[in-house]
């Protein structure tokens, strides 16, 4: 994160004010107001866990409402409950997917709707994952709980463009087997992909669970994963301990990539609340490297 700035107290006035005749009245709406949502339709609802559902959202014209890069965000609204930012977990020509955990008033209302419900949708927002940086490299994905949602968009991208990337390793965990999201991918689809390892863990032992038991942050060390580019997402406390563990294992700060979450209202870097230091998560993020986070105040 560049911390270099103009030392002059009275820098040049910006020249961005559009040049136009100030004596010309303006009426009517602007064609591209980024704060106005488009009408969308929730065409499919998939129950992932007891409190996570995936919503497939199609635009009013039958195609996907927008084309996000892996890791980018969309603002979904359901009247009269409001609007919130979610990461796009997958997309195809007809829809985008958002995996949403029921935690607040909007998300609980979303969990109560049926297929065919219309909604508001705007985006894409944020920077997305650095695809060029990841190109040709071995990638380790480390995710906990609903943190799988943003990471999944990149995993899917890598699987779809399998030859562009090196070895893919997924380390994923949740509180229990029931809380694991995207089980089809974890247990059926991805294990069949060439040169791709899947490691799943749950927090506590459970009847019938044959896999690993333990928390996500310590699992990569137990697996003795060699340092490479890693993508980390999960609850703030998981991210914190995972980053510490990766640092200890010799992962380079500029190769550890994570996505942050903050409360957002506008999504376009104006409304102010999602700042971490001088960065806005909705615009400059949500994807940051550990190197960038180290230069930012620890306030997330």
């Amino acid at each position, binding site marked *: 994160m560049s*911390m270099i*700035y*103009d030392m002059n*107290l009275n*820098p040049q*006035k*910006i020249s*961005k*004010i*559009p*040049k*136009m005749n*100030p*004596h*010309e*009245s*303006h*009426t*009517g*709406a*602007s064609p*591209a*107001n*980024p*704060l*106005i*949502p*488009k*009408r969308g339709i929730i065409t499919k609802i998939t129950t992932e866990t007891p409190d996570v559902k995936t919503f497939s959202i199609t635009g009013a014209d039958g195609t996907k409402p927008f084309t996000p890069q892996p890791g980018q965000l969309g603002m979904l609204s359901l*009247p*009269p409950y*409001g*609007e919130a930012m979610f990461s796009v977990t997958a997309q195809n020509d007809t829809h985008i997917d958002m995996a949403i955990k029921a*935690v*607040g*008033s909007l998300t609980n209302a979303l969990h109560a*709707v049926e297929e065919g*419900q*219309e909604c*508001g949708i705007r985006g894409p927002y944020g920077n997305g994952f650095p695809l060029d940086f990841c190109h040709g490299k071995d990638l380790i994905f480390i995710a906990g709980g609903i943190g799988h949602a943003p990471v999944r968009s990149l995993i899917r991208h890598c699987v779809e463009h399998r030859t562009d990337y090196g070895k893919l390793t997924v380390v994923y965990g949740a509180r229990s087997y029931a809380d694991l999201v995207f089980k089809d991918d974890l247990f059926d689809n991805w294990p069949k992909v060439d040169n791709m390892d899947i490691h799943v863990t749950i927090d506590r032992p459970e009847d019938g669970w044959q896999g690993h038991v333990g928390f996500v942050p310590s699992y990569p060390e137990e697996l003795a994963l060699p340092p490479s580019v890693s993508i980390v997402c999960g609850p*703030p406390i998981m991210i914190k301990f995972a980053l510490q563990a990766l640092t200890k294992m010799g992962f380079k700060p500029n190769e550890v990539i994570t996505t942050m979450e*903050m*409360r957002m*209202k*506008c999504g*376009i*870097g*104006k*409304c*102010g*609340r999602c*700042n*971490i*230091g*001088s*960065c806005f998560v909705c*615009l400059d993020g949500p994807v940051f490297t550990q190197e960038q986070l180290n230069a930012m*105040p620890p*306030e*997330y």
Partner: protein
Amino acid sequence: MKTIAKTQIDSILKALAVPYNLYIPVAGAFTQTPGREGLENASQFRLYQEGLPLHWTTNTCLSPKDLLFPQTEEMYTIVSHGKTVEIQEKAIGHKPTILFGIRSCDIESIDCMDRVFLEKGFEDTYYKTRRPRTILFALSCTTHEDTCFCTSMGVNPQSSPSADVQISDLGDTFSFTAQTLGGEQALAYVDALLSEIIGTGPSGALKTQTPDTLKTPEELKEIALSNAADSTLSSAADSTLSSSSADSPLSSAADSTLNAAADNAGNKTSAASPLPTDPMIITVNSDGVSEKLENMFEHPLWDEINLPCLGCGACTYVCPTCYCFDINDKTLSHTTINKQRCWDSCMFSDYTRMAGGHNPRPSKKERVRNRFLDKLLYNRQRHGRLFCVGCGRCVAKCPVNLEIATVIQKIQAAEVTPS
């Protein structure tokens, strides 16, 4: 330089109010609401109407930011029936507008707003619609309030080079100097009402320095007159060379104005002339404050200064550079919602609280720290300047005196171990 007697100012306002939405600083009024008589309404910018009591002596209690960034802006209507949702965008109507009599500090705050809403990725549609259609008439200060500290923040209270028109208070008269094409076009509507003095005007003479003390109207007038004299000399020289009539020497009308101005300058007992002013009471050293704050995120200063804060948000409400907003619903019926954006405040606990309860700034300490770091460090990094213009509104309004001037002084006095 064009001037008009202060007593005639209403003729200018009346003429400008025809082609423009004209906003003027209006004095606080006393309400007549039964049971609340005597409560003061804040002085603020209002749409011109004949007879509104003008507020000329000092800055308005409320900043004019709401004219570019309304406190509440209706964005769109959502109508939902069963599973269907319909979204109707609201039209943004904006007539050419003049903000008349803005002080230098608030002109600087508009520069801050320009950077937020027109830079860094997305442009804000609402602001981008209003801003180029808004003409700024800056008014020089000849006195200051006890709470003013603009000179400490690098603002010249008597000159705003980025304004469209600079109005200077010359005692009994106001001078008008157009500084942009938009300003010239606006002044053309009132040209017949103004008297001409040939000269570059006081703003040209003052713009290179930040005065420690404000110039009195008499001093401003002397500068104006000497500029006028210089200009007369040079235009006389020009005319001997080119013998062109384009660079006309003083007209007789301007001549008489000059003489009248000179008479006024000698008339120290004139009731209309403000008294010569003292240096500002609050002075702070803002040099290097951003650089120092880079190593102060964990400083114990924040544990101390947040203690009196009530979290009322008055500072953010009156601050001319505070731009945060919320997007929320105004429910019209069980099927219809107006989506609107409203000013918000980073001092409120739910500002950053996420669904599920996690709050990255859970207590007053983090919120107070974020506000001052935002003003003095983050916006410097993001937008290239401090987001305090020294208007002193938070100094005047904070109920517990937790205001930015004192905080800057405490930051400058703090001991920091280099990281």
